[in-house]
């Protein structure tokens, strides 16, 4: 899980062009939106693209988005539970 969360932080920075942010600046349980990393609705769509591109996972229910993308940890948990080879 730690390796996956570390990878995710690097991928989030690259996907969202967060050039002033380093992976170590993002806490495992830090909120990604609003008061945390300050991501917006377009960033949310880019995170869905990241899941598809990097992990071949399609978010089946859009209403799950706020829970899945709450923190790096919740993203990692969702990926672990939904990776095709684990299905």
């Amino acid at each position, binding site marked *: 899980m730690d390796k996956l969360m570390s990878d995710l932080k690097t991928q989030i920075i690259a996907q*969202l062009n967060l050039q002033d942010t380093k992976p170590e600046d993002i806490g495992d349980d830090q909120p990604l939106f609003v008061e945390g990393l*300050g991501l917006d609705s377009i960033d949310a*769509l880019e995170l869905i*693209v990241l899941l598809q591109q990097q992990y071949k996972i399609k978010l089946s229910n859009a209403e799950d988005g706020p829970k899945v993308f709450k923190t790096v940890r919740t993203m990692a948990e969702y990926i672990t539970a939904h990776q095709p080879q684990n299905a």
Partner: protein
Amino acid sequence: MFEEKGSELPDFLVAVYRHFELQYPKFHKMDYLSKLGWLANEILLQDVFDKEKYKPEDIGIVLSNANSSLDTDIKYYETTKTIASPAQFVYTLPNIVIGEISIRHHFKGENAFFIAEAFDAGFMEQYIGNLINNNILQCCICGWVDVLDKNYNATLFLIEKDKSANSVNFTKENLTKIYQLQNG
């Protein structure tokens, strides 16, 4: 004012951003057209512009270029061959650069983006003159912001209804003279 010899547009834009020590994380998410226009506007307004003189509704932006948002349209189209990029899609209109500038400075006045083969000083004088003479605007940022592949150009003017010490008259001739001076 600033020179970055031999650099490609992406590196040039970041170099300008760093040179002027700007702090605006969203800059890095913009497309090249928005970055170029946004930076040109930052430089235009630094030191000389007192926005406190105006209400947000009094400050407008009128821009033009030859290639619309084609530079980003092409990049976005490439992403659609795999997974379409939402972040690219939101920049597939040329007037988004006006939005980025307006968000930065809280400008809420009339705005427009026109596509033309070349900078048309006569049109700018007529269009913006009409907005100012009819008290729709008290102030307007206008000019040319164009990007396509490796070619780019930004030339902006600050038009204010009230004259200041170093201002020149807002005429087609003066716009043309300054534009030509900047662009050879």
